[in-house]
Every structure is written in C-alpha cells, then in structure tokens.
C-alpha cells in the first residue's frame, strides 16, 4: 500500500515538477525583492571608501618599509601576566555546554518548525557560529573551556582506558581531516537548501558530534581537536587574534596573560600546507557567502536576483562557487608568498613561509566574519533570546524574554545603513591593516632584516589591498539572494 502510494506520489510529483518548470518559464511573477537596506548603501559614496581602504593598506605597507621592525617585533612579544587559574572548570564548562547542546537538539526535534522560533538554528548559526567566533577573536580561546566533546571524551576515555586514543593520527595527514570537515560544514551552511530547518540541523549536529567523539576516542582528544574536528580547529586558530593568552603551568593550572591583538599570531608555529589551506578555506567560505548574493555573481550565471529561485535551484553553482573562491584565494596567496620569497632571497622556500604568513589572514577572516554577519547577529540574536525563553513554544517563559518583540528596525533606514556600513568598512580596513602588520612582523622574523621583509611582503601587500577592495565591494554591491 505504502509503496503504491509512494509510486503514485512520485509520478504525480514528477508530473508536477515538469509542470512547475514549464509554468515557471511562462508564468507572470511578482517581485518582492524589496529595496532593503543595501539600497541605502548604494546611495552612499562607497567608492571613496574603496579607494580610502586601499590607500590605508598601501600606506601601512609603506610605513612598514621604513619602520623599525625590531621594535614591532618586541611589541608583539610583550605580555602582561595576570596570574593563573585552575583548570577544573573546564570539565564542568564542557559538561554544561554538552547539556545545552542536548537540550537544543531535543528542541530541534520537539520544538517549533519555524527556524526563527526554534532555539537550535538560532543558537548554532547566530550565537555559536557568529557570536562565539567574535568572542574568540577578541578575547582568546574561550572554546577551550566549553568544548562539548571534552567531558564525554574524558568519561569514555576513563572507562575504556584510551586516554590518548589507540591510533596515532598520522603526521602526513596534517590538517586534512579538518579541511574536509570544514568544507562539509561550509557547504551545509551556504549551499544546502535548508540548514536552518530545526530537525535537519538536529540530525546533522548529532551525526557531526558522534562522528567526532568517536574520532577523539580513536586518535585522542587533543590531536583530533587540533587537526580533525573543524570547529575546534577554527576556534583555536581564530583565538590567536585575541588579547588573552593562556597556557599550561607546571602545577597543572592555566596561566593567563594579556597581549596586543594579533600578537599571538606572530608567535604561532608555522602551519603545514594543509593547515594553510584550512585557513584559506575558512576565509574563502565567508567571502563566497558575500559573493554569492551579489547581482554580479548571479548575473554572471543568468540568474535574476530580483526573483531568486531559491537555494535548491543553485546547488551546483553554489558548490562550484565555493570551491572556485577557495581555489582562487589559495592560488593568489601561494603565488604572492612564492613571489615574495623569490624577491627576498634566491633560496626562498615557499611552503614554510606560507605556513607562517598564513596566520596574518586571521584578522581578515575575523573582519569578514564581523562585517558579513553583524546584521544577522543583531536581529537573529533577538530571535534567539525569545526562543531560548520558550524553547518548545509551549508558552513557558524561562527568562522573561519569550514575548520579546524583535527589533528588526534596529538596522533599518538610511541612518542605520550608514552606521552599519561604517562599522563594516572600518572592520574590513582595520582587519587588513592589522594583517599587513602581522605579516610584516612574521616576515621580519623569517628573513631577519627590514629590507628582506619589505621585498618578501610586497606581493602579499598587493593581494591584501585587492582583498580590502574586494571586501568593501562585496558589502556595497547590490544583493539579491
């Protein structure tokens, strides 16, 4: 019976799909792609910002050519020790976070089907992916304290006795597992038609969590969260931008010190090529998130941005775009580093230099993250507050915010668009200026002289100027999808 019904339904659906395609081609359609806030930005003198942003990055590079790099280097090494803290809260932080994840997954299955009323998609995409990333980038590795895998791994490792796993994660594998997982994550976020659907997200989250927990048991928590589980890898990397540095102490506590933003990037161990590619993929995915909505991108492929057909219709194109953005960015980065190494010395070795210099794109990655997701954070953050108070939408009001009226107007109108644009442009330009500073300091350490550093950095500076302009252009272009 059921199969018969299914067959009948499939035939009907197929016939329906054919009709749909035919009708879509023929049907008059109304457009509601409204003159949203990007419309106000289109009236702003954004061209001046593009020129100004490029000039700021160029000027920073020129100043660095003549600046006393040893002083900059010393500045990057400055630390203000704050003492040490016990590490026991880590286990409780992790357990609490795991409990929250479980509760959210339950809400994903049992709560509202509306992605703006169900706390799961709001917590995952807005609070975690946007909010926590920004917290990490500004402060430091907060994720270390709340990593939800840590507590269950400790428990399972204690029961099984596999404290360091039972297989050594091969060195040659580098960060490739993380690259593959991050690509899957970005694809799910940007290309998959329904990443916000509470139930599908809950299923994806369970699958992701358990797979990685198993991998942590096999390879050890530390190794897998350094090179495998892509969110931990990303969070750990982005935390190097933050102003707090923590590390183990002799008495099993955790030392805490303050440093300048980006200073930890200069001291970071060079990444293997796979690690370098991981960071480029992370930046590429946020860049493509902006690019794929522009009139320019949609127009290239004959998609009318005013009647964007929906994600289902552009999955192939989106996958291509995500890969292409990453490939173009990686080619640009490796070419710039390679050329720089040649200019600086005949014996320039590109891959290690790339592994060290790639840390300098973290401020850019952070700036893109901030600029592209600021609006989502401000509006969907309010939906999250409401949803957390009434997670199953059955009328409870846990924190008194269940009936919160979401102030979408906070970002509406010309004045707010101007504010938002300036914050975004400021972040993009600031991020690139910091990136040039970090890259130059790393280059100074690699080459040992101001002159060689300048030569090695010239091509990368050109790339950074181009990426500044690209970033500002993305945020000032008309968008439709």
């Amino acid at each position: 019976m059921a199969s018969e019904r299914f067959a009948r339904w499939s035939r009907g659906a197929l016939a329906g799909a054919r009709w749909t395609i035919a009708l879509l081609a023929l049907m008059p359609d109304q457009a509601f792609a409204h003159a949203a806030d990007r419309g106000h930005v289109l009236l702003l003198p954004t061209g001046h910002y593009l020129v100004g942003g490029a000039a700021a990055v160029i000027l920073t590079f020129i100043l660095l050519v003549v600046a006393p790099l040893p002083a900059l280097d010393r500045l990057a090494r400055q630390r203000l020790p704050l003492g040490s803290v016990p590490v026991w809260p880590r286990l409780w932080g992790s357990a609490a976070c795991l409990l929250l994840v479980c509760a959210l997954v339950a809400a994903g299955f049992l709560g509202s089907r509306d992605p703006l009323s169900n706390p799961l998609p709001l917590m995952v995409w807005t609070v975690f992916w946007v909010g926590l990333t920004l917290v990490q980038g500004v402060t430091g590795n907060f994720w270390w304290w709340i990593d939800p895998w840590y507590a269950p791994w400790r428990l399972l490792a204690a029961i099984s006795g596999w404290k360091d796993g039972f297989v050594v994660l091969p060195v040659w594998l580098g960060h490739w597992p993380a690259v593959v997982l991050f690509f899957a994550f970005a694809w799910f976020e940007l290309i998959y038609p329904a990443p916000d659907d509470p139930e599908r997200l809950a299923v994806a989250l369970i699958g992701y969590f358990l797979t990685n927990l198993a991998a942590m048991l096999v390879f050890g928590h530390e190794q897998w969260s350094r090179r495998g589980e892509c969110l931990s890898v990303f969070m750990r990397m982005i935390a190097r931008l933050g102003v707090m540095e923590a590390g183990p102490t002799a008495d099993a506590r955790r030392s805490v010190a303050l440093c300048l933003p980006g200073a930890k990037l200069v001291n970071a161990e060079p990444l293997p090529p796979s690690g370098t590619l991981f960071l480029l993929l992370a930046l590429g995915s946020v860049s493509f998130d902006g690019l794929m909505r522009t009139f320019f991108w949609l127009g290239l492929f004959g998609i009318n941005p005013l009647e964007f057909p929906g994600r289902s219709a552009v999955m192939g194109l989106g996958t291509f775009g995500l890969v292409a953005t990453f490939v173009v960015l990686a080619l640009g980065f490796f070419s710039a580093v390679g050329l720089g190494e040649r200019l600086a010395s005949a014996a320039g070795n590109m891959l290690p230099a790339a592994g060290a210099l790639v840390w300098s794109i973290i401020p850019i990655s952070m700036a893109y993250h901030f600029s592209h997701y600021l609006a989502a954070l401000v509006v969907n953050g309010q939906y999250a507050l409401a949803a957390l108070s009434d997670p199953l939408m059955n009328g409870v009001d846990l924190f008194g915010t269940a009936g919160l009226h979401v102030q979408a107007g906070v970002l509406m109108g010309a004045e707010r668009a101007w504010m938002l644009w300036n914050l975004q442009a400021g972040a993009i330009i600031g991020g690139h200026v910091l990136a040039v500073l970090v890259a130059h300091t790393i280059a100074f350490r690699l080459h040992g002289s101001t002159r060689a550093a300048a030569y090695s950095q010239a091509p990368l500076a050109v790339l950074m100027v181009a990426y500044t302009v690209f970033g500002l252009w993305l945020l000032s272009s008309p968008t439709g999808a």
Partner: protein
Amino acid sequence: MNDRTKPSSLLTTGISRRGALKGLGAAAALGTAPGFVRYAQSQSSEPIRIGFQAHRTGIGAAYGRWYERTTAAAIKRINDAGGINGRPVEIITEDDGTDAARGAEVVEKFANQHKTDIVYGTLFSHVVVGSAPAAGELKMPYYVVSEGYHVASGKMNRYVLQPGITDVRAQCRSVAPWITSNVGKKITMIYPDYAFGHDHRDFFGPAAAEQGGEVIAQIPIPPTESSFTRYLPQIPSDTDVIYHVMVGPAVLTFVKELGEFYGGSGPKLFGFIDSLEAVDINSPGLEFLEGSHFWEGMPRYLQDGASEHEKAYREAVGLDENGASINDAKDVSTAAHMFGCWETLYIIKAAMEAAGYRGPEDRAKLVEATEAMTEFPEGAEHPQGAKVFDGKVHQVFGSQNISVVENGRLNVVHRTSIEDGRYEPEADYTTQPL
C-alpha cells in the same frame, strides 16, 4: 517591549500572540490549557491545524516577518472569539526558504507529517507555482496570499485559492481609469525586464488604452542594473506620466537618478508601492517622489477617514500611524499586502463553518464551500474593504487605493471600485474533479 498583553495571557485570554504560532507537538499542551475550556462544548476540541508556508529565510524574509505578525494577530482574534466551529486554531509554521522546490516539500510535510487541515500564507509566486502541483496531488486546500495572476489564469489547480488579496492584473486595470483621467494620457512605462515587469506591461497597457490613454514608450530595465542614467533619455519628451514599477535594492538609486535627470520638474509619476514596501518613504534619495502617486493595496499611513475596522486591524497587528511597528518605528510594515493574511484566515474560517468542516476528510467540501462564496462585506474580517469572490477562477476582487506622497506621507486620494478591476475570467476550476 513585550508582545503579550499579560504575562499569563496563555491562561487568561486563551492564547498569547506568540502562543498563536505553535510548533509541532504543541497541540496537546494547548488542548489542556485552562483557557480552552470554552471549546469543550464543541464536538471535538482538537485544534484546527493550519500549515503556514512561511518565507522565514531567503529573499522573502522581510515580508515573511510581517506576514507572520499579521497571521498571529488574526489567529489570536479568531481564537479569542471561540475559534472555528468551536475549535481552537493552531498555526504550524514551516519555512520554505522562499525556495520553490522546498515549497513543494513543505506542502507534502504538512499533509503527511503534520497532518494539517489546510496550507496557507504563501507570498512569492515562484513558491506558489512550485507548491501548487503538490497541493493538487495531495488534495490539500492551498490558500495563497500572493497577488500573482497565476491563480486566476487557470494554470494552477482546483485546490489552489486566492480569496484574500487581489491579483496584479486586477490592480493594473483598476488604476488605469484614474491615471488617464487625472494624471495624463501619454504614458511611459519603466519596468524591470522579467515576469513581474511584463505583467504590468501586458495588463496595464491595454487597460489604459480602453480608457483613452496611450502607452507611448516601454522601457524595460535589465534586472541586474543598478544605475539608470542611460535609460532615462529614452523617456519621450511628450510623456505626461511615468508609470514605474522598479523593485529591488536599486529602487532608491532609480528614484534619485530620475530626480536628478528632471531636476525638479518633468512628467508626473505613478508607481506601485511594491517598489517601496517596508521602506520609509522619507528615506534620502526618495525626495523626488513628493507629489507622486502610488497604488496601495491597503494604506500604509493611518488615514483620516479610516473605518473602525481598519483601526482595530492596525491595532491588532501592531501598526503605528505611519505603518511601522508600534514597538519599533523603523520597522516599516508591508501594509499594502499583509492584510491579505488576515482576510484569508477569516475566509478560511467562514468556509470551514459553511462546510461544517470536521477534518481532512472534508477538504473537498471546504474547497467547494470556498468556491460558493461570492461577497465579503467590509468589516472586522475584511478591514481593507468589501470584496467579490469569483469561485470559478478562485480569485477575489476588491477596491484599490491610490495615494499621493504629501509631506513625506502617503495620503489616499482615490479608491477604485471593485468593478474597475474585473476582467473576463479565463478559467473555470469548478469543472475540475475534486
């Protein structure tokens, strides 16, 4: 700010505003809430389940927000008054991502998983067109609030109905007589070069000609265009009226460049507020619109002569005098369209009551009962105004508003008659089997 009138409104008023839009699994909780004792006398206190196909994400999200608020307000009012056939109404929201393929999936999910009584609320035409075959196949009454001509064209199926909002063809026809007699007869049309613009081109031109007007130039603009200066010289110098229906983020640029092109003089302007739904009319760049006219489905700004019903509707939805949220003056509503949600829900209520609707087995009866409706008088259920329903084409007809921009506000200067928008029907769904 808080949407709830009282913290315990779930218990005291039957259903809170947020509570009106329930998720899956909420039915049991609703059924046992003390506020629902009033439903006990009906044959079944099981809620009527309405599947709300909502544009919560994707290109339609800004409209989706206001469709959701209007839906919540209407459901609260319906439930406060005893529900439908003595049963509470529950809304189950599924996001379609403003995606045609997901639209069909959502309809299927409503039918098979949530087992809703009907599906309702879709705005974007491509989602309606994508979902309609599934609704027909599953024999699921599908009440859309989309404004497209697709329903009346006969290209959908017997289960697709649009009883709460007029279609674009009727809107174009309605405004033609007023434009030709009050603004001018020589008309230049500027429209985006795709289906939406083509609708206006194809429906307005003949309607204007019938009234003695003449479209002297048609200027299609490629949808990806973001600057218009090179198109503006194509406007003939003897143009009386520019009929513009540009949409998308570049609308503000379009108006600004038009103003710069004419430098404060030039032909008169007539537009559709679709261009500027949810956008403050006082935004920089829109100064040139002062004195120009717009079609509005329902007035955004509270008018002097607004009926008590209209005022009550605005209060229930939470609109201030400027058509923005009472909680958030910058959050301008989609006032010209969203009333369609309110009115559609009341038609569903009336049709279910007329059909003696008990459950999914009565879906065909519900469609027939809707088709049998002919007139909706102005009132609390129809605050936009009286309407006439044509059961053969599953489409409602009503009055349109023509407003002028005066001192940064839209003031209604004319209300068209229902007859102004009528056209020869091109279909008869009632001949299709149920």
